[in-house]
């Protein structure tokens, strides 16, 4: 049997820290990979909606924020809950599930483009609310410090590297497994059928509202899981501004660049997009700094300022020239090229 890309990806990723023991360069690669794993979980959550079900969600950052704050409130010792890592993560996933359900219930019947704007607005509202409710969320300071995760008595510290790496990789593998199981079952079949032709699907007995709602809440749950992991890694909930529209767009970029509706594609997309974002831009910045080409007054020479342009152009060009992504599922591919002659 052919080894699927996503399993190959996870296997290779699992070997990186081992290699790092011998080759120091691999360690920096591993450090780069950790945020990629988290973004991949986020993007996989979006993929359930956008890739499988065909619903555009522009507010995944909001669910990530909810996850991060829920996790922070549940674990931080300025509040009485003080759960450990594992129960807190589970509760956070539940919070995400409920949040997705709450947003989904009134809005899920909307046409696709309306729904996209509603989710966008939701992202904005969550940010605003987190900022405004400073009694609970500590406003722009964020909730901190958060205790590190523990695993079988072992305490994670911020200096260590491999345990975090495997923690995130483990969660990613779990999410990939869950998504794959769902994709190859009646649930995934119904999602894809809704994407293809909602009316025909409902005439076949699929309840589109129920299935979309399921996709919505599962996606939201995964996004808040990503948020919780992110918060635990930072040791802080971060400030509300960290979860702005840009994060949602990065997730969307990952899904679109990688290949909509394809788990392996999303993993590849996360590698390319986040890798590009952090590796290329940072290397470039360091290069410029080293040669004293950056002045604080000149905005153009700060590569970080080109981010929006990069993501924007990526979306436009992908849609124009390769809408199915780098690693398309064969399903989406044909769908996006409606007028091309069939492969003979």
């Amino acid at each position: 049997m052919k080894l699927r890309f996503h399993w190959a990806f996870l296997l290779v990723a699992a070997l990186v820290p081992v290699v790092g023991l011998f080759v120091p360069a691999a360690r920096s690669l591993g450090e780069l990979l950790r945020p990629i794993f988290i973004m991949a979980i986020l993007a996989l959550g979006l993929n359930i909606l956008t890739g499988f079900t065909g619903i555009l969600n522009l507010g995944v950052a909001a669910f990530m924020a909810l996850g991060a704050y829920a996790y922070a409130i549940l674990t931080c010792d300025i509040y009485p809950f003080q759960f450990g890592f594992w129960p807190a993560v589970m509760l956070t996933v539940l919070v995400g599930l409920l949040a997705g359900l709450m947003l989904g219930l009134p809005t899920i019947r909307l046409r696709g483009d309306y729904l996209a704007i509603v989710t966008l607005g939701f992202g904005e509202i969550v940010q605003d609310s987190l900022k405004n409710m400073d009694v609970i969320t500590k406003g722009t300071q964020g909730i901190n410090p958060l205790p590190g995760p523990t695993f079988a008595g072992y305490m994670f510290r911020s200096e260590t590297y491999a345990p975090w790496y495997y923690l995130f990789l483990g969660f990613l593998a779990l999410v990939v497994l869950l998504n794959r199981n769902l994709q190859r079952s009646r649930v995934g079949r119904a999602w894809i059928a809704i994407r293809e032709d909602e009316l025909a699907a409902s005439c076949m007995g699929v309840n589109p509202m129920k299935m979309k709602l399921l996709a919505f809440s599962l996606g939201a749950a995964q996004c808040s899981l990503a948020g919780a992991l992110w918060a635990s890694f930072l040791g802080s909930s971060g400030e509300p501004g960290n979860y702005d529209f840009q994060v949602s767009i990065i997730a969307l970029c990952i899904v679109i660049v990688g290949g909509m509706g394809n788990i392996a594609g999303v993993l590849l997309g996360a590698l390319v997009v986040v890798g590009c974002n952090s590796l290329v831009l940072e290397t470039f910045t360091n290069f410029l700094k080293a040669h004293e080409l950056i002045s604080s007054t000149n905005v153009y020479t700060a590569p970080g300022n080109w981010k929006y342009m990069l993501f924007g152009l990526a979306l436009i060009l992908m849609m124009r020239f390769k809408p199915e992504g780098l690693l398309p599922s064969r399903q989406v591919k044909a769908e996006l090229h409606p007028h091309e002659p069939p492969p003979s």
Partner: protein
Amino acid sequence: MTGWEVFLQQLIIGLSNGMIIALIALGYTMVYGIIELINFAHGDLFMLGCFAALTVVSLTGDLPVWLVLLLLLVLTPVFCGGLNWLVDRLAYRHLRDATKLAPLVSAIGVSFVFLNLGLFWGGLPLKVFGFGKAAAAPKDFPTLVSNANLLGNSNVEFTTKDLLVLVITVPLMVGLTLFVKQTRAGKAMRAVAQDRLAAQLMGIDANRVIGQTFLLGGGLAGVASVVAALYNNTIYFQMGYRAGMDAFTAAVLGGIGSLPGAVLGGLCIGLARALSDQYIATRWTNVMVFAILILVLVFRPSGLLGAKHREKV
């Protein structure tokens, strides 16, 4: 100030802001009406218009005020309209037959590119462009129109600025209505919006008409940005996002695709914002607008003046 005066004051502020929102909403609704695309980049186009207006003012600062105003009202809409047309030509036109998602995602991309352009524009090294501040910081827009109260010593303020908003926007909306109702190009626009295939069979070049719609919608956004910049006297590169959300909510509230609906929706949103600022809390106003959007979509998805949408089987 008595309670009634406060209320009246908020009405005036709400109406003025509502007119600006309505201008932007018109651009959304026109484009949606004709190709069913939520032109996501429209809010950021408005923002770029504000920067263009600032540039025009900086370059023509020595001229008399009326001339500057005239130049602003000509150059900015031309810039915005042209840019909008160009984007349609380069990005959206190729996606006419694709799934609905493709042009929407493209529009999001365009909005990001615009956002970045706004950031850079604010950071242009010339003194006149950036007013010497860091690129991302809000820029002051010079006060060309005075803040004098036209109602004399009354507690309620109706300023020259409010008058300016009315004087510019009301004729523009009347003109737009006449254009769409009476002219050949306007009729072609309505025809393409109602049935693109039938319009093509009448010999109408649908792509050209769609391009004209983008041009017109962009032009309206340009006027809106001039008015908004003159009214609020401050611009920043993230302002398009908020304005876009408000305008989109207005367009949906009025019934997307309907021109009078967009104006009505704009006024409603403007009023709602002003009243929420006064009677609830400024920091919760954005949440209120979102709540309105959700309520409208749950109870009346076709908006106040919109037509019902029926799927063909």
